[in-house]
């Protein structure tokens, strides 16, 4: 009997956030207005050409591309938490899986838009499909990002099916069309053994499938750089280096989202300090892995000091990008590792601060990877305006960079408003298991 009450309480708790309230409307309004401002900046770029950005013939990839890499990186977390951890039977991560999947889907969907914003002729986007050359890493990127989006969507959707049924049955105060949509999407879920088995099999297949695809999207993105002969990019470890960095960025993003949802949706009973402690350990683990790749990436060229590498290393360590470089490496990686090793810091509020540092560091890290290399090609930069050789982002460019971030927030907000952010069905099942074990 107590079980029954318990599961009803869980359902009620987790369904509670699914309703329109004032806070949600205000937040959406703020996001939409900011997005409009940013889109106006993009309109200016379309009208006047990319001259409105700080880019030039030498630094021809700038903030947009760093932003793209950051987006792809952040989307990788879905695979880590829902894929790897579930296959490793890390039960603690189960309540976080949906948050991770929503983040992954939002970042992956917008990453494509980010790259379109960097194009000189977005009107010719279809050429990629009409005249595509599969020898180009861009084609690989288009292919794997599309695949990853599909798989992420399925990975979000399939475990959601029972919850959708619950939504359709238990949600009050929703318009009939919404109920119909929930009903339709729940695919006649009736909790039969056959259906349970199908869900289990499908989820497991996707959990395995998402690992190579996720590795591919970030490895291919790293190849956009590593497949060129440029100092700072011409590296064989770029694939794993980027993947490790992606885990760091994504974990930090999940922690921030966890904190916010926990506060706003009052989910303290479901996302506990235990979860923060665990994911804090995960962040340390992936950060250490990333640190290891960083040591490789800078130590090897710095030891040899080949001519072009020497310019690059010099720029980063003591030159014009040194301040940004050290802020990124210390504030975004080394200090967070030291703090998170200590248990007192693996609490919600310190972790929010540390994760924000890590996430900002992750963004800056992509900037540090893209720009200094472009500023130092093999041959001297001469007979061009200063603007071409020293990159300074413009206001328009910054606004256009912010636009996709707002879109990600919009997608996350909307998704978190229409579906339960913590899996209801799974949580109930988990509770029942614990209860049966006690008996």
């Amino acid at each position: 009997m107590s079980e029954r009450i318990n599961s009803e309480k869980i359902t009620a708790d987790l369904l509670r956030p699914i309703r329109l309230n004032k806070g949600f409307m205000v937040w959406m309004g703020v996001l939409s207005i900011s997005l409009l401002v940013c889109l106006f900046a993009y309109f200016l770029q379309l009208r006047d050409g990319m001259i409105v950005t700080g880019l030039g013939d030498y630094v021809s990839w700038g903030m947009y591309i760093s932003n793209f890499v950051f987006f792809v990186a952040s989307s990788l977390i879905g695979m880590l938490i829902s894929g790897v951890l579930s296959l490793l039977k890390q039960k603690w991560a189960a309540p976080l899986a949906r948050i991770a999947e929503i983040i992954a889907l939002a970042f992956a969907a917008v990453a494509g838009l980010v790259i379109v914003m960097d194009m000189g002729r977005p009107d010719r986007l279809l050429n990629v499909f009409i005249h595509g050359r599969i020898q180009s890493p861009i084609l690989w990127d288009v292919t794997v990002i599309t695949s990853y989006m599909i798989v992420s969507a399925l990975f979000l959707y399939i475990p959601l099916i029972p919850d959708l049924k619950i939504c359709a049955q238990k949600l009050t105060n929703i318009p009939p069309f919404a109920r119909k949509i929930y009903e339709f999407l729940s695919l006649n879920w009736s909790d039969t053994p056959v259906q349970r088995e199908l869900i289990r099999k499908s989820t497991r297949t996707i959990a395995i499938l998402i690992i190579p695809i996720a590795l591919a999207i970030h490895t291919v993105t790293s190849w956009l750089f590593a497949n060129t002969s440029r100092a700072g990019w011409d590296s064989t470890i770029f694939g794993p280096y980027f993947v490790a960095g992606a885990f760091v960025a994504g974990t930090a993003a999940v922690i921030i989202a966890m904190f916010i949802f926990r506060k706003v949706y009052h989910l303290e009973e479901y996302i506990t300090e235990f979860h923060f402690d665990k994911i804090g350990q995960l962040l340390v683990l992936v950060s250490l892995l990333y640190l290891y790749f960083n040591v490789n990436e800078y130590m090897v060229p710095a030891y040899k000091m080949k001519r072009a590498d020497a310019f690059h290393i010099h720029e980063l360590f003591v030159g014009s990008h040194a301040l940004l470089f050290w802020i990124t490496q210390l504030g975004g990686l080394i200090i967070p590792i030291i703090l998170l090793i200590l248990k007192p810091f693996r609490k919600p509020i310190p972790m929010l601060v540390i994760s924000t540092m890590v996430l900002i560091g992750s963004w800056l890290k992509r900037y540090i990877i893209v720009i200094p290399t472009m500023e130092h090609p093999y041959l001297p930069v001469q007979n061009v305006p200063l603007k071409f050789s020293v990159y300074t982002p413009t206001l328009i460019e910054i606004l256009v960079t912010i636009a996709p971030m707002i879109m990600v927030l919009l997608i996350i907000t909307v998704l978190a408003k229409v579906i339960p952010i913590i899996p209801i069905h799974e949580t109930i099942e988990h509770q029942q298991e614990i209860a049966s074990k006690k008996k």
Partner: protein
Amino acid sequence: MNYPTKKLKSILAFSFMICFAFQSFAASWNVPEDQKTRNSYIKFDASTASQGEAIYNANCLSCHGDPGKGNNLKSLNPIPPELSSVGSQNLTDGELLYILNTGRAVMPSFKNSLSEEKMWHVISYLRGFNKNYVQTLSSFDPSKSKLVKLVANFDKAKNAFLIVAYANEKNGKKALVGSEVSLFVKRRFGNLQIDKTLKTDGSGQAEIVFPNDIPGNKTGELEVIVKLFDLNYGEVQTTSRLAIGVPTNKPGLNEQRAIWNVLEKAPYWILFLYSLGVISFLIFILYILNNLRKFRISGNK
């Protein structure tokens, strides 16, 4: 060093300095006597001068500047002279033609880029800046070149061209002695001279060996041009197509399969791996979608 001295001194006796400067200038060109005394057969007039101006502006202006304005490029060593100057104008027409033909150090040769007629036009233009200039017309008659018969036979045994030149004068054949002959192979952007320019011997003959490594077309054919220049008869040339080159049939540079080539010529491995990836992904997705279909069917409405 010796021959121009007397003449120049008589012209520039009023200034030792100028004389000295000019002496060293002209002497350094070492113009052969027969070239130095050459004159134009074209009457210099306003029309030739304006044609010459256009050629001058395209080829000479960037270094020598506008005549009379002193905007010649002084950063060069030696400094290209200002061509309306006394020093330059005191050169004979023949000397100017020779300088245009040969070039030296900074100054390029215009032998291949300007015909003799055009060079006389340039000189005509330059003479317009000299009030005292009086043209001495050459008695040379360009139509006389029609009398010349130029025969070039390829001798396979010797691998050489035997060139014979004579003029069909009214009083019979006259061998052209001491005329310059040169052999060229026609190429896309210009003519490649084979060996050096030779002078015909006493019987109006010359022999130029043809190298055996000149590429021809697919069948080894190439176009050979023999040019003759005689001070009395002018310029004559004859062209022939012969299969004496190395047959050349290299494939186009974009034939092989390569990562940079078009999609149809992509390496097999990349076509294979890409298709493999896409197909296995589709299989997985179809499997999942089929699961969802079964799922929907098995459920109760």
